Structure formats: C-alpha cells, structure tokens
C-alpha cells in the first residue's frame, strides 16, 4: 500500500505537468491579452509591461521560465528586494552559508498589480476551503440520511418525499437559491447578514445554498447504492444470522454502499474548496472562485495557471484519498 501511494504521488507530478502544458497552450491561444483594455495602451507602454513580465520572449521560453520558477529551488540572498516577482512559497534559511533556499514562485498577477498568485491563494484559499467544507457538511448531512430513508422505505411516500426534496435541491441552481435566501433571511427577516465573510453567520446561507444543491446527488446515490447492497448475499446472511437490523444496515450495508458516494465526494470537495464563483458573487465572499473566473476574462496568465494547478493538485489528492477509502470500505478491493 505504501508503495502504491508513493507511486501515485509521483504520477501526480506527471499529471500536473500535462495539465500545465495544456492550460498554457490553451490560454495563450485564446485571443486578447492581459493588457488589452478599452482605451488603447501606447505601444511603448505595452512593450514595458511585456518586458516586466517576460512576455516578450518566445512562447516556449515563457513556459520554461514559468515552470522553472515553480519547480527549481533557488539559492538566494537572505533579503530579496520586495517585489511581486520575488514571492516564493517556500523560503528556507540555511545558516551555514547564510543564504535562503527558495522554491515555488507562481508569478505575479498582471491585473492585481500588488498581488502574486501565492498571495492570492494565501488570502482566498482559506476562505473557499472553509466555505467548501461547510457546504460539504450540509450536503452530507442532508443527502446521506435522506438517501438511507428513501432506500429503507423504498417506493413509499417517504421515499418519494425525500427524493422530491432532493430533486428540488438539484434543480434550483445557486443563481436562484442564493438571491432568494439572501432576500428572505438577509433582507426580510434580518436573521443573517445578507453578504460578507468573517463569521459563522456569514457562512450559513452560502454553505446551505451550495450544499443543498449537491445533497441531491448524494441522496440519490446513497439510495441506489444501498438498495443494491441490501440484496447482496452477505447482507442476507447477516440478517439470517439474526443480527439487529440497525447493525446490518449501519455497519455492513452502509459501509459498502458508500463507494459511489465517496467517489463523488472526493472531487466534489476539491471543487467546493477551490471556490464557487456564483456563490461568492451573490454573497460577497472574497474566495478563490471569483479570482479564477476573473483571471480568465482578464487573461491574467499566471493566476489562471496557478489556480488551475492548485485545483488539479486538489483533485488528484482527493481522488487518491478516495481510492484509499475504497479499500477500507470494501476490503476485497486491492491495488496491485
């Protein structure tokens, strides 16, 4: 198992490399550049900006430079002049030679002039990750119990009611549920602050809007999967042995039925944690989703690359985690 994990982690870098290459190629093929604005920038100014950010080099050199800044550790003076070009994620002071080893410079933002990709992620990832976790908790706490009820009371009113609620959740996108929640609880009832970030109250509405929409998926997957498992031989055996129904369902059936649910949860968490543009806009949350979408429209190349690579890392790790959980959920699964 240990070797399997190590191998997967090594492969992660290969995947990240391919993702970076694809993203770089696509974003540079898209027309428009980071400095094109409504008003025409004088050619001289454009040249100055391109020189500052190395955009005057041939494309492959730009890519190599970019990847080099991320991948290759550098030994530098202890004090670098403060600049958006010198923001490294990892800085290790080496006392013997009195230098600092720096690694992973994801570059500056072209549009937020005083920000770097590292600083954007440092500021926004905790926000998005908190909201994402909240949304996931909501989704799991609504979705899985609803799914269990629906499966156990299959084709009864309970089932139909639970599933109808789930369908409402999935058919009402955050674009609608967000403003409605904001209007009802923020404006009319004044129970919660309509927008903003910083306290638990601020998180309730966006987490609920995001989580409710995703809970349907979990509810229905749980239902389907549990029904499947309940007909397995070993469940019948367990029942026949006279085990308590709760233990049969709670320990044996549910654990096995969680496989498709967990498969969905992994990447779902990765996506929720890296930001939801719509929810952030509706609830005025300074999260990563906004920066990601805006960076694409602004052609803010380093931010596009940085956020994509971060999302990729999250997805890969989440999927690896899911694969490991499979083994725990179903010991028969083995990775060779």
């Amino acid at each position, binding site marked *: 198992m240990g070797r399997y994990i190590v191998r997967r982690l090594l492969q992660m870098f290969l*995947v990240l490399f391919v993702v970076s290459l694809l993203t770089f190629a696509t974003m540079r093929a*898209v027309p428009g550049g980071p400095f094109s604005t409504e008003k025409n920038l004088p050619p001289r100014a454009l040249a100055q900006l391109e020189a500052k950010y190395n955009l005057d080099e041939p494309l492959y050199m730009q890519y190599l430079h970019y990847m080099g800044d991320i991948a290759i550790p550098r030994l530098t003076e202890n004090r670098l002049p403060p600049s958006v070009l010198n923001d490294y994620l990892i800085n290790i002071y080496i006392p013997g030679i009195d230098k600092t080893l720096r690694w992973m410079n994801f570059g500056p933002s072209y549009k937020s002039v005083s920000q770097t990709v590292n600083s954007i992620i440092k500021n926004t990832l905790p926000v998005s990750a908190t909201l994402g976790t909240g949304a996931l908790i909501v989704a799991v706490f609504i979705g899985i119990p609803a799914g269990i009820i629906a499966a156990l009371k299959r*084709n009864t009113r309970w089932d139909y009611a639970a599933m109808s609620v789930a369908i409402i959740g999935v058919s009402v996108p955050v674009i609608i549920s967000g403003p409605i929640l904001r209007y009802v609880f923020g404006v009319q009832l004044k129970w919660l602050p309509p927008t903003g970030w910083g306290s638990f109250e601020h998180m309730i509405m966006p987490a609920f809007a995001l989580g409710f929409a995703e809970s349907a998926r979990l509810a229905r997957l749980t239902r389907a999967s549990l029904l499947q498992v309940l007909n397995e031989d070993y469940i019948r055996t367990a029942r026949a042995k006279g085990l308590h129904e709760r233990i049969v369902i709670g320990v044996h059936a549910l654990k096995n039925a969680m496989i498709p649910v967990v498969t*969905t949860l992994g990447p779902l968490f990765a996506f929720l944690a890296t930001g939801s543009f719509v929810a952030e806009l509706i609830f005025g949350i300074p999260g990563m989703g906004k920066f990601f979408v805006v960076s*694409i429209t602004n052609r803010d190349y380093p931010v596009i690359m940085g956020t994509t690579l971060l999302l990729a890392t999250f997805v890969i790790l989440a999927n690896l985690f899911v694969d490991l959980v499979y083994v725990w959920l179903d010991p028969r699964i083995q990775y060779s």
Partner: protein
Amino acid sequence: MTATQSRQEPGKIISLAEEHRQADNLWLDALKRLARNRMAVLGLIIIFLLILTAIFAEQLAPKSYEVQVLTDNNAAPQWVIDLFPVMKSIEDGGYVKVSNNYPLGADDLGRDILSRIIYGSRISLAIAFVGPLVSMLLGVPLGLAAGFFGGRVDNIIMRIVDIFYAFPTLLIIILMMAYFRGAFNESSQAGTLGYTLYLADRAMGGMLFIFIGVGLTSWVGLARLTRGEVLSARERDYVLAARSLGATRWSIMFRHVMPNVVGPLIVAETLTIPVYIRYEAFLSFIGLGVNRPTPSWGSMISDGAQTISSYPNQAIFPAIALFLVMFAFNFLGDGLRDALDPRMRGVD
C-alpha cells in the same frame, strides 16, 4: 464473441439458445418491472411530452419567442402577482404592470415567458441528452476497463481522468467561441471545417461549443464512478465463481460485472443532467451562454435571477420547467435501476 466462446467451454451447462432466451426474458422482465413502477411511468410520460413540446414548439407556443412589445416589459398576469407575495400591481400601489396577455408574464423586453420556455426546451433537452450520451459512450467503457483490468490500464486511464478533471473547461469554451465566432464572418472561407462549425454553432443558437465543452468534461466523473463500482464488483463471489468456471474476461465483464454496477451509474447519470443545464446557466451568468434572442432555460434562469427580488416569476417558471425534467429523469432513472437490477427479479 462471448457466446461462441462460452458455448465451447466444457462444463458449461447453458446452451446458446438458452442464453438468448434468458437474455430476452431479462429485458422483457425489466420492461415489465418498469411498467409496474408508477413513478417511472409518470417520468417517462413527462419526458415524452417534453420531447413533443420541443418538436412542436412552433405550434404550441402562443407567441413568438423573440418579438418584443417593449411597453409590456415585465408585465405579469394577475394570478402570478397573487402567487408571489413580493409582487404588487400598479393598481395596488406596486410596480407590476398587469397584463393577462401573457400566461406566465413577460420578460424585461416584453416577450412572452411561456413561449420562451417552450422554445427553450429545445436547447435544454438537447443539453440534457448530449451530456449523458457522451459520458455513457466514453466514461462507462473507460471506467469499466480501468476497474476491471486494473494495473497499468487503470493507471493510464485514471491519470487521463485526472487531467480532464482539473483542466479548466471555461478556457476551452472561450477559446472555441473566440476562434470560431471571431475568425469566421459571413463572407469567405466557405467549405472549410471551421466555417462549417461556425455555421453549425450559429444554427444551434451558439450552443455547439457549449455542447463540446460539456462533452469534454462530462465523462470523467462517470468513468471514475464506474471504475469504483467495478473495483468492488469484480471481487464479489459471483464473479469469482464465474472466473473459476472458466468464463472469459469479456464475458465476465459484460455479463457479470456490468449488470451489477449499472444501477448507481444510471442514477448518477440522471443526476448529472441538471448539472449540465446548471453549467449552461452558469455560462450565461458569466456571459458566455447562448446567442440572444435564442431562449434556453439556463439563460432564462440566469437572466431572471437578476430581477428575482422584483419579478421572481421570470426565474422561477423556467426553474419549475427544469424541476419537471429533473423529476421525470430521476424517477425514470430509479425505475430503470430497479428494473435492471438482476437481483430484483422476483422481489416485487
């Protein structure tokens, strides 16, 4: 192929003819079980009606989807005003123009919302079918192969999945729109592939590239899900039994593994349909949706969401249409799942 091989296996008791008959029965049984499931039948009827709506939109829609009566902007019939507590008609000191000409009200340019929902079903249903189609065709076989063969095959396929999971679809969509919509104008370049794509996109109201974007990403989730299910299923007793009986890999895969994993897959797929429609709404929201004035539920929902605190009907009615589709697909999906589950035989 599988049948021929298995027939020659020594120790196999079932003959080819029997196998066929059994398969026929399997499908017939499934159909019977499906027909007995009231909710599934209801779902099927709704989907059928929606398809008819999309086909006969011209005949069904009371008005044109594009003709504006500017002075009737945001007008609503009395019953809609009564329905939503926030809306108040001008007569009652509110702001809503009352006009019973529009069954569900008019949008901000004075276009009939009902007609736009009817026409919008075309694009939204198309999206509802394209996403699952692509993911069934690509995702299921790839996931099946990855889970079943394991090892290197699994590794390669799953790494590709990882790449597609993380790659920003938004970039691809912007690129395609920019390239094809920008590079090709009415004149020149007739006959080239790019021009054909441009024309196709235009004919579809700007949906082609959204389809491609949806298609590109839709299969990855299903591929992983299939793989996860197969990983578990291939170690089950009946697969081991089949293997010990000498069944071939292909036969095991399609005959024994596939039917056992299909339930959650169908459910997952019916669930992703609103995800695709939501994605289209999201694209409209950030300004990359369908060409106007072509209506789609996603763009109606996203436009209507802007005015939801003044004219909730403009977003809620398209959302109800979406709910209806979801409702239908979900219960049909559940019905199919139950019907296809081989262990459900004789349960009902």
